């Protein structure tokens, strides 16, 4: 779409990285309003070659109309085995996936972001990193989408091993709680998307939201809190506060943070039948 054309965003000369001030965006997006970005019809329509060109060679040229190409069958990648395993929901300026990229160099990961300018920034940032660090940052990408509506279009059942929700928008008002990215109903979808044993990471500097997210997860039958030891041993934990732009801002102001980490479980009870 035309609004995404890179016009005046000349990268910074010394670092090659795109400059954030050209991508300044509205503070909030209303996740309830219908936007007009392409959505893959099914997870097998996600254009992996476009997102991870080094992993997925193709013979077709990259479509310029968006992140996914869902009307050409040429872009179907039924045979490809490697799939996205980490998703950063509401990735903002992408600090987390950039840090995770080198920590898990063989894992494909994606940031999902609803604001187009911000998404565009992350896209440029990744391209610049790939350019200046040949062979690196090939495993990360970003897509503009409303994660609250379209997660099942991107990932199959049990596909993800980690999902991140770092400093999500708080939506303070009671009547806006249904806009929160962590809610009892949306957790059903995240449980569907996560493999058994997969982990959901949440962090916020808003105490009330931290309690809400923790309560939602505690009450959900398909999630259990992870132990203190596991928490301490997880190399990802320290990135939650340090890797993202929002996290750094909070740290600069010495703000308190509230973390909740939960594991996707498959309850052994056969109450609901023999499925799973």
């Amino acid at each position, binding site marked *: 779409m035309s609004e995404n054309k890179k016009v005046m965003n000349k990268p910074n000369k010394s670092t090659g990285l795109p400059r954030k001030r050209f991508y300044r965006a509205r503070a909030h997006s209303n996740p*309830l309003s219908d936007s007009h970005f*392409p*959505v893959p019809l*099914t997870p097998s329509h996600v254009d992996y070659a476009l997102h991870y060109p080094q992993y997925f060679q193709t013979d077709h040229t990259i479509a310029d109309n968006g992140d996914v190409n*869902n009307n050409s069958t040429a872009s179907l990648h039924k045979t490809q085995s490697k799939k996205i395993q980490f998703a950063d929901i509401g990735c903002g300026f992408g600090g987390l996936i950039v840090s995770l990229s080198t920590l898990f160099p063989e894992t494909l990961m994606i940031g999902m972001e609803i604001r187009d300018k911000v998404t565009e920034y992350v896209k440029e940032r990744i391209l610049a990193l790939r350019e200046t660090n040949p062979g690196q940052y090939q495993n990360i990408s970003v897509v503009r989408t409303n994660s609250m509506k379209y997660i099942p279009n991107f990932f199959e059942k049990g596909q993800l091993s980690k999902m991140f929700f770092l400093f999500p928008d708080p939506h303070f008002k009671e009547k806006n709680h249904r806009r929160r990215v962590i809610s009892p109903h949306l957790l059903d979808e995240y449980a569907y998307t996560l493999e058994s044993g997969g982990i959901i990471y949440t962090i916020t500097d808003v105490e009330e939201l931290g309690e809400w997210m923790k309560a939602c997860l505690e009450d959900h039958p398909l999630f259990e809190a992870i132990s203190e030891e596991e928490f301490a041993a997880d190399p990802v934990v320290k990135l939650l506060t340090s890797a993202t732009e929002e996290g750094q801002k909070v740290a600069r102001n010495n703000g308190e943070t509230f973390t909740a980490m939960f594991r996707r479980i498959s309850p052994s009870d056969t*109450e609901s039948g023999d*499925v799973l």
Partner: protein
Amino acid sequence: MEESMMMEEGEVAPALIAIHPVEKSVVVAIGSELRVFDLQEDCASSLVDDSGRPLHMDSIRAISFGADGRLFVSAGDDKLVKIWTTNPWHCIRTVLSEKRVSALAISPDNLFVSFADKFGVVWVVSTEVDDERKDEASPIFAHYCSIITSLEFSPDGRFIVSADRDFKIRVTVFPKRPLSGAHEIQSFCLGHTEWVFVIITIFISTFWHFVICIEKVTGRFSFEFASHSFFAVRFVTCLSFVCTQEYPQGFLLSGSGDSTVRLWDITSGFLLDTCEVGMEAGLLESDDKEETLCPAITDICASPDGSLIAVAIQRQLFMTNPISFFALCSLHGVVLLSCNLSGRTLSITKVVSMGGTFIPTSLAMSSSAEHLWIVTGASNLPALDSPSFARVSVISGLKKHGSDSSDDKPVVLDDNEIPGGSKLLEKLQGSVSISKGEEALAAAAEAVKIAMRNLLIKRQYSVEKRELRKKSRNDRKLKQ
């Protein structure tokens, strides 16, 4: 926001029809009225509400018989969910919903009624009258802020399937104790496409307005007609199950605004077959290459074994010249399909034209599939002397008896051949519409047609308006 636009006060409500599984009675809902005819006793039934509350007070949006016909449910814009016994017809329970109700279903064991509200939340309530949480329903899962168009239980009761206006079909495990929520998603059936049209609307008279469809695409628009309205037609409109002894878990059928009927394996979410009904029924054929025709599937019903599937098809939008618009208006009707469950394929067996003025708004078939019951009609119709209108029609001869059954053709029965005859019609159609002259009937049918089409259309911001909104956003100001 979208939902406020789609369900406005006093909005037209299409007439609905439901048939008892062994044709003991047939029900038509029109506006706030439930009309029941007892086919066994050959007389109209009157409804008694034991719950001490009034009957429905606003448009009914969903009705359904339970699998064995002992229970019936009705719900809609008045936020009341009514559970009825059918022998005799008594309302045993009225449940209050927080929001308007868009879909409902009874679990195959008759223990639970599930309904969906206009915020996309699905609720469940026990049918046992002595249940402690008497008039309250529990939320069990939700689609994210999309109106749910259809709810169905799988025939074995293990799953509940919900379809929404964002072309998502979700299959959820229905737990033994559902009041504490249904959190386990078995699958998503994805594949119905989003059809987006750029449309120009030209008003010629109150009844006729031509709608011109320029392009269908996903996510990419033609901006040539930027000053005109934008509409999208896309959602899954209806669900039904088929199963046989070999496949007791059943397969799901869905129909949609994208003109297709699809067959799904709900355990995996796999799409097994797609029947391009519009195309294959010859309804898309046209000499004029510029025309893009896109009939919507508005209802679907199936004999339990899948040998007979009926879909209501409604031509909605088009086209490049007004002359062909007139010509094509006559193509509303019913298309019969059959499902080969071992081959997992769908195929069209017959197109039954109902004539130009009969647009089926709802279909029903008993388990014997002897008759296909069809209603056309709506309430709150503008510019008519009586604001609601319903016509009932019946097709018989659907089933093939024996192999060389060339004379077993589906036929639209004359009014006096319909089971229950004129007594039934008088009850279900309301005596008013019977006594009307042909001209009045045609006008009413026309109003229904327009109303139905508008229901399928989701109004969106025009390109201009959207651009304007964008420009006033802070993140755009940089561009200037």
